[in-house]
C-alpha cells in the first residue's frame, strides 16, 4: 500500500477520488504512526480511535455512493481549544479536565459538512498562552525536526502533527503568532486569516479582538483549500465579516508569475539579535521573488517596535475577562471552598498554570481603576498607529515579506524561566493581529542544525488570495516544503 499518511490534502484527495486509497486506509496508517510515536512527538492530547474509524467508514460509504466533497475522507486534527460536540476541550489546562463540549464550533460544523474526518485533539500552550507548547498542563510536544527542541506555540501540537505526518492537516489559532510561529518552527505552512474571515464561535477565547482560527498544512494549496472551507460570515459571531469567500485554490492556480507584484520589505522586521541564518534564508527568498518578477521596495512600519507592549496589554486585558468563566461552578474541575469566593480562589489556584495566572494578573492590573488610561487606553491608541502603518504601506505594495521569528526553534527549557524572553518570540507576528490583517508562514530554508526557517507574507485586509498566490508560486520554485524530518526515515 502506498504511503498515504505523508500525503498533502491535494494528493490524498486525488488518491481517494481515483479509488487508489480509502479513508479507512488513511486513518489506519495515521493511527498506527501515532500509536508507534509513543509520545516522542506527542502532538495529540486525545484521539478517539472508534470515532475516527467510524467517520472514515462513513466517508467511504458516501464516496461509494458516488458523492464527493471538498474534504471528503481527509483527516484534520483540531487544536484542543475548539469545541467539538461530545469531545473534551481541555485547552491544555487542568481547569477544563472533565469538560465535554456540548456543541460544535462553526469551523467544526463546516469541516463536517465538507466531509472531513476529525482526527483527534492536538496539544497547545495552556489557553493558547505561550510560544513553545511548554506551558501545557497535560503533555509535552516535541519538534519533529529535533526532538529536544520545542515545536513553537501555542499551536505546537497542530504544527508538530502535520510535520511528523501524524495527520494530514490541522487547525490552529493565532492571537499573536500562534499559527505562524509553530508552522515556521516545524516547517509547515500556517495561515492567520484576516480578523473576522473565519468564525470564532466555538473557539475558546484568549483575546477575542485578536484571535483567529486558521489552517496548518503541508503546502500552500492545502492551506488555501482548508481556508476556503472554514471561512465565511457566521450569524453566531458578530465580528465575522460579510464579504463572500472566494475560491482561494482557483486564485493560486491562476498565478504564474510575480510580474507586477510589489513586495514590501519592512526594515523594522530585521531586528537586532536576529539569527544570521534566518536573515540569510529570508533574504534569499526575497531574491527568489525578485527573480520571479516581483518588485521589492523597502518600507517602514515605524510603530512595529511597540507591538509587543501593546499586544501584552490588550491581549491580557481581554484574557482576564475571558478566563473568568473558569470558576469551578458549571463545568470542569472544582476545588470546594467555604463560600463562592474561596471556591473560586482554590479552583483557579490549582487549576490554572503559572503563565495563565501571570497574564490574568497583568490583564486585571491594566484594566484597574487608576491604571486603565495609562495602559489599556494608551495601548488602544498605539494599536491605531500600528493599523495606520499597515494601511499606508499597503498603498504602495501588494504584500509584505519578512521573517516569522528571529531564530529557528530552540531547545526545550531554554526560555521557560524567562517569560519576557519568551514574549519576544512574538515580536514579528503580533503587529498583524493588532492590525487585523492576514499573514502566512511557509518554509524558506533550514539552519545548519537542520531546523526549518519560515518566511512570512503579510497581506492587506481580506487579501488572502494574494498572499496565498505569491506563496504558492514561491513554493513551486523551491522544495523546502518537500523535506521531511529525519526521524521519519
Amino acid at each position, binding site marked *: 500500500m502506498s504511503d498515504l499518511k505523508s500525503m498533502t490534502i491535494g494528493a490524498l484527495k486525488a488518491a481517494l477520488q481515483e479509488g487508489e486509497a480509502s479513508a479507512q486506509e488513511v486513518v489506519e496508517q495515521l493511527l498506527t504512526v501515532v500509536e508507534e510515536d509513543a509520545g516522542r512527538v506527542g502532538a495529540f492530547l486525545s484521539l478517539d480511535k472508534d470515532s475516527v474509524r467510524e467517520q472514515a467508514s462513513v466517508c467511504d460509504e458516501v464516496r461509494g455512493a458516488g458523492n464527493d466533497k471538498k474534504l471528503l475522507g481527509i483527516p484534520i486534527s483540531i487544536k484542543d481549544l475548539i469545541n467539538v460536540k461530545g469531545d473534551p476541550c481541555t485547552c491544555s489546562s487542568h481547569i477544563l479536565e472533565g469538560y465535554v463540549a456540548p456543541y460544535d464550533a462553526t469551523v467544526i460544523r463546516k469541516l463536517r459538512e465538507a466531509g472531513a474526518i476529525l482526527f483527534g485533539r492536538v496539544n497547545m500552550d495552556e489557553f493558547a498562552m505561550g510560544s513553545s507548547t511548554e506551558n501545557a498542563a497535560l503533555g509535552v510536544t516535541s519538534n519533529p525536526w529535533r526532538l529536544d527542541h520545542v515545536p513553537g506555540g501555542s499551536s505546537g501540537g497542530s504544527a508538530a502533527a502535520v510535520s511528523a505526518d501524524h495527520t494530514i492537516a490541522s487547525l490552529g489559532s493565532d492571537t499573536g503568532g500562534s499559527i505562524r510561529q509553530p508552522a515556521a518552527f516545524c516547517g509547515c505552512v500556517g495561515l492567520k486569516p484576516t480578523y473576522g474571515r473565519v468564525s470564532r464561535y466555538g473557539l475558546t477565547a484568549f483575546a477575542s479582538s485578536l484571535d483567529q482560527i486558521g489552517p496548518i498544512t503541508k503546502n500552500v494549496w492545502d492551506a488555501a483549500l482548508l481556508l476556503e472551507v472554514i471561512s465565511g460570515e457566521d450569524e453566531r459571531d*458578530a465580528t465575522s465579516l460579510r464579504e463572500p469567500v472566494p475560491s482561494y485554490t482557483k486564485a493560486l492556480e491562476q498565478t504564474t508569475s510575480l510580474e507586477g507584484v510589489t513586495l514590501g520589505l519592512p526594515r523594522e522586521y530585521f531586528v537586532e539579535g536576529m539569527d544570521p541564518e534566518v536573515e540569510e534564508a529570508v533574504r534569499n527568498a526575497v531574491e527568489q521573488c525578485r527573480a520571479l518578477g516581483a518588485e521589492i521596495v523597502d518600507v517602514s512600519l515605524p510603530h512595529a517596535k511597540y507591538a509587543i507592549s501593546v499586544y501584552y496589554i490588550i491581549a491580557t*486585558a481581554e484574557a482576564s475577562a475571558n478566563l*473568568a468563566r473558569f*470558576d469551578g461552578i458549571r463545568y470542569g474541575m472544582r476545588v470546594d471552598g467555604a463560600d463562592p469566593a474561596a471556591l473560586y480562589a482554590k479552583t483557579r489556584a490549582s487549576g490554572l498554570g503559572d503563565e495563565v495566572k501571570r497574564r490574568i494578573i497583568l490583564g486585571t492590573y491594566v484594566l484597574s481603576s487608576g491604571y486603565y488610561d495609562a495602559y489599556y487606553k494608551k495601548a488602544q491608541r498605539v494599536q491605531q498607529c500600528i493599523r495606520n502603518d499597515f494601511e499606508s504601506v499597503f498603498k504602495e505594495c501588494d504584500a509584505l515579506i519578512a521573517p516569522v521569528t528571529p531564530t529557528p526553534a530552540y531547545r526545550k527549557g531554554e526560555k521557560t524561566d524567562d517569560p519576557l524572553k519568551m514574549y519576544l518570540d512574538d515580536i514579528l507576528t503580533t503587529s498583524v493581529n493588532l492590525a487585523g490583517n492576514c499573514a502566512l508562514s511557509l518554509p524558506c530554508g533550514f539552519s545548519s542544525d537542520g531546523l526549518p526557517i519560515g518566511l512570512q507574507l503579510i497581506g492587506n485586509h481580506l487579501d488572502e488570495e494574494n498572499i496565498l498566490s505569491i506563496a504558492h508560486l514561491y513554493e513551486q520554485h523551491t522544495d523546502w516544503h518537500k523535506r521531511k524530518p529525519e526521524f521519519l526515515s
Partner: protein
Amino acid sequence: MKQYEATIGLETHVMQQTRTKMFCGCLRVYGADANTHVCPVCVGYPGAMPVLNRKAIELCCKAGMLLGCSINRLSRWDRKNYFYPDMAKNYQITQADDPLCLGGKLEVEVDGVTKVFDIERIHQEENAAKNIHAAGASLVDYNRAGTALMEIVSTPCMHSAEDALAYMTAIKQIMQYGGISACDQEKGEMRSDVNISVRPVGQSELGAKVEIKNMNSFAFIKEAIEYEVDRQISVLEQGGTIDQETRGYDAERGETFVQRSKEDAHDYRYFPEPDLLPLTLTEEEMEAWRSELPELPAQRRARYVEELGLPAYDAAVLTADKATSDWFEAVLPYSSKAKPISNFMMGEMQRLLTEKEITIEACKMMPEALAKLVDLIDQGVISNSAGKQVFEILFDEGGTPESIIEAKGLAQVSDDCALEQWADTAIAENPKPVEEYKAGNPASINFLMGQVMKASRGKANPGAVMQLLKQKLDG
C-alpha cells in the same frame, strides 16, 4: 436646629418583554423548571459568543423615546467584571460610556404639585441568573441569565419617598403602556437601587451617598427611604459622618444595614466588549419605532377630559393601569356615552374585580356588551338597578345584555295596556291618597306610584307610570 434636605436618585432595572434572551435564542420564560432554558451562550460555556437581540434594542429605544431621551445612533458594549455565581461568564455585558439613550425627563404629579424628574440615561444589559439558597446548599437557576434588562438612571433629583414613589409609578405605567415590560415586581421585572444622601439646607454640595440595592416592592422602597433619611440626619445631628456605602433593607425589622463599605467596593474594570460590534441605528428604523409609540397615560388623561368630557378624577382612575384603560378604550367605538361607561368601570367593575380577585383580562364581559347595556338603560329598557344585575352576569358569564334581560325578565314595562290596568287598579283601591292628591298634596301620588311598581314587580317604567297617573288624576 438645622434643617436637612434629602437627595435621592434611582437606578431602575426593567426586564423587557422580548420573546428570547438578550444574546442567545433561549426563550425568556418565568417559572419553568430550573435550567431548562439555557444554552452554551447564557451559561458561559467556553467559545460561546453573544448575538444581539434586535427586539430588545427596539424596546430600549422606545422606552427612551417615551421618556424624552435622545437616542444614540452609535452605542457601544462593555464588559463589567465581577465574580459571582449568578453571572455565568463572571462579567456582564452592558453599556458604560455610550449607552443607547441619554437625557430625558418625566413629568409627575406629587401631592397635587407637578414635578419634573430628570433621567440621565438608559442602557441595555443582560440579567443575572437566580441564586437559590436551600437546605445548606446554594443552587443557581440560569433560566433568567442573559435575559434583556435595561437600566433607567435618574439624576439625583428627588427629595422624598413620595417623589421616588411617584417617579417609579410613572415609569411603571409608561413601560406597561409602551409594551416594553409588564413590570411585574413579584417576578422581579422591575427592581430599583436607591441612592440617598442628606445635606443641611443651603449647602451646595451633596452629602455622602448611600446605595440601597435591589428592591422590588414600592412599599419597602418607601419605608427604606424614610428610614435611611432619618438615620442619616440623626447621624449628622449627633456630629457623626455618613460613610459612602452599600446597604440592604431588612423589611421585617424596618431597618437598613451595611452590606459593603466603600473600601470593599468593586472595581468593575469596564472595557469594550470585543465580541460585539458597536451598535449603529439607522434613521429609518428609529423613525419606524417612533411611529409605533403608543399614547401615554398623561396623553390619554388629557384626551378623556377634553374629548370625552370626563371629569379629571375619572380620567386618572381609568388610566391608572393600562389594562383597565385599554378595556375602556375598547368600549368607546361602540358608544359615545363615556360618563355612564366610566361609572360602571370605576364602580361595578372595580368592585367585582376586587371581590373576585381577578384581573380585567379574565372578566368574561365583552366591551361591546357594556356599550349596549348603557344604551339599554339610557333608553329605559331596564332600570339602573336591573342594569347592575345584568352587569354582574355579563362579568361572570359573558353573553349579550339583551339575552340576559330576556332570560331574567328584567325588561321594564312601558306597554300602555298593562300600565293602564295597574294604574286604574291603584286609583280604585286607594281612594284616600287620591283624595289627598286632588286636595293639593302632590306627594301623595308617590304612594300610588309605589302600588303600581309593586304590582308590576318593579318592571314598570317609573317615568311612564308617573306620566299616566298624572294624566288620570289631573284629567
